[in-house]
C-alpha cells in the first residue's frame, strides 16, 4: 500500500538521522582517543611542562582546572541552593517569581564569552582582583549559577507534599522542615545538578580567557590571586600560540583526551544518577 511505503521511507530517513548524529559524534571521540592515548603516560600526567611547552607533562594545568572548578562551586552552590529554596519553599506565586524565573533562563542563555567580558570588567578591573584564580572562579560561578538553581528547583519540587505536611503536623517549623526533611530528600537530585555543572565549568574556555588563564606559568599556583594554567585554555593556546606547532600539537592531543575523559566521566556519573532517580520517582 502507498501509505505503508511512505511510512517505511520516512522511518528509514529518521533512522539515518540518528545514525549520522551518533556516527559523527563517535568519530570525534574516536579521533581524540586514538591520537591522545599515544601521548598519555605517567610522566605526562605528573610532570610540569618543559622547554617552552614542547616536552614534559601537564600536571600544573590539570591542577589549575581543579582549582578553578572548585572555586566556582564554592561560590555558586550555596548561592544557587539558597535561591532554589527561596523560590520553591517561601516565595508566593507572583510576578516576582516569574521575573526571577525568566532571569534564570536568560542567564543560562548568555554566551560564555559575554560572561568573560563581565568578569574582566568587574572582577579583574573594577574590584582589582587581577587576572587570577579568584576572578576566574567567580566568573565561572556565575555561569554555573542558573544550572544549579534549575536542578535544585527540580529536585525540591519532586519532594512529595505529604512528608512536608507530616513534619509540619509534628510541630516542626518551616525552616526545621526544610533543613531536616526536604533537603535530605532532595539531596541526590541537587548533587546530580552540581555534578553536571562541574562537568560544564571544567570545560569552559571563553570565560577564563581574560580572567584567569595564562599560557605558561612556572610551577603550581600559590594563592588565589595568581594566574593559572587550565586544560581548555591550554589546548587553545597550544594550537594557536608558541613556536613549535608540531610538538605542541602532540601535547594538545593529550590535553584534549584528558579534558574529554574528565568531562564525559563527570557528566556520565550525573546522567546515570539522574536516570536512576527518575525511574525511582516514576
Amino acid at each position: 500500500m502507498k501509505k505503508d511505503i511512505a511510512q517505511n521511507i520516512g522511518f528509514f530517513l529518521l533512522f539515518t538521522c540518528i545514525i549520522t548524529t551518533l556516527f559523527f559524534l563517535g568519530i570525534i571521540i574516536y579521533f581524540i582517543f586514538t591520537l591522545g592515548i599515544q601521548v598519555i603516560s605517567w610522566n605526562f600526567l605528573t610532570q610540569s611542562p618543559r622547554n617552552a611547552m614542547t616536552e614534559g607533562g601537564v600536571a600544573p594545568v590539570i591542577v589549575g582546572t581543579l582549582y578553578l572548578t572548585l572555586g566556582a562551586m564554592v561560590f555558586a552552590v550555596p548561592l544557587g541552593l539558597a535561591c532554589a529554596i527561596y523560590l520553591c519553599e517561601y516565595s508566593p506565586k507572583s510576578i516576582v517569581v516569574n521575573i526571577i524565573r525568566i532571569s534564570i533562563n536568560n542567564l543560562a542563555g548568555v554566551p560564555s564569552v559575554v560572561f568573560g567580558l563581565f568578569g574582566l570588567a568587574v572582577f579583574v578591573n573594577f574590584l582589582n582582583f587581577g587576572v587570577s584564580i579568584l576572578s576566574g572562579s567567580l566568573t565561572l560561578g556565575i555561569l554555573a549559577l542558573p544550572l544549579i538553581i534549575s536542578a535544585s528547583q527540580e529536585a525540591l519540587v519532586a519532594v512529595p507534599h505529604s512528608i512536608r505536611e507530616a513534619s509540619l503536623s509534628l510541630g516542626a517549623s518551616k525552616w526545621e522542615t526544610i533543613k531536616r526533611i526536604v533537603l535530605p530528600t532532595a539531596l541526590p537530585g541537587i548533587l546530580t545538578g552540581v555534578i553536571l555543572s562541574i562537568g560544564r565549568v571544567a570545560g569552559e574556555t571563553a570565560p577564563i580567557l581574560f580572567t584567569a588563564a595564562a599560557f605558561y606559568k612556572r610551577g603550581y599556583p600559590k594563592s588565589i590571586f595568581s594566574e593559572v594554567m587550565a586544560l581548555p585554555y591550554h589546548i587553545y593556546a597550544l594550537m594557536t600560540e608558541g613556536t613549535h606547532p608540531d610538538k605542541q600539537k602532540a601535547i594538545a592531543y593529550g590535553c584534549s583526551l584528558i579534558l574529554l575523559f574528565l568531562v564525559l566521566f563527570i557528566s556520565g556519573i550525573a546522567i546515570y544518577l539522574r536516570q536512576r532517580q527518575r525511574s525511582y520517582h516514576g
Partner: protein
Amino acid sequence: MAFSSLFFLVGIMLVLFKEGTPIFKDIGFFKFLFGAKWYPTYEPPDFGILPLVLASLWVTAGAVFVCVPLGVGSALYLNEIAGFRQRQFLKSIIELLASIPSVVYGFFGMVIVTPFLQKIFNLSTGLTALNASLILGLMATPTVCSIAEDALSYVPRSFREASFAVGANRWQTLTRVVIPAAGSGISTAIILGMSRAIGETMTVLMVAGGAAVIPKTFFGPVRPMTAAIAAEMGEAPMGGDHYHALFAIALILFLITFVFNIIAEIISRRFRIKLGLSG
C-alpha cells in the same frame, strides 16, 4: 540571595552598556553597526562591525542546516520508533555528548576537519565558514535533539490514539498529528540551538579562519562576533576605543541571544498551555 540571578543578569547588562556605549558616542551608532570595515588596530582605526555580524549570521545559518535535520530527526526517531530501553539508552548518550567541551570540538575541527575539507574542495585554507558551520551544527545537534524530544514526549497519548482510531498508520500520525501538536516545542528547540550556535566562541575562534571580511561564500574564512571579542580583547588597551568597541559587540550579541531566549520562552509557554500542561 534569591535575586542573585536577576542581579547578575542586570549587572551584565549594565556593564555591557557602560563599557560599550562610549564607542557609539565616538563614531556614531549607525556607522558602528553598518560600517563595512573592521580594522581596529589601523591608524586611523575602522570600527564597522557589519562583517562580524554577517559572519555570525552566516555561520549560524550554515549550522542550522546541519543541526535541524539531524537533531529533530533524531528526536523523532527516539520518540516514535525506538523502544523504551533503546530510548533511555540513546537519550543518555546524546545528553552525554551535549557535554563535550567546545574547545574539544574546535580542536577536532582544526586537526581533522580542516585538512579534510582543504583536500576535497581543493582550497587554499581549510579554516572556513563551512568548517565552522559543520562543527557548530554538530555541536548544537544534541541540544536540539534533547529539547525536541522533551517537546514530543509532552504530546498526550490520546492524540495518537485518536489518530490510529481513524485508520492512520504511524507515519501519518507522526506527520499530521504529532509534529503539528509539538511544532512550537520543536521550534523552541531550534531557536535555543541557534542561540547556542551564535554565542559559541571557542569553535569559531579556532576554525572559522578569522578574516574580517563580509562573507560571500562558505569556502572563505570569516570572523564572527564572538571570535573577534575573544581574539582581540587580550591586546586591546583598557579604556581605549577598541576595548569599548569589543564591549559594544558583546552588547549586541547579548541582545540577540536575549531576544532568541525570550521568543523561545514565549513559544514554549504557549505550547504548554495549548497541550493543557501547567506553565
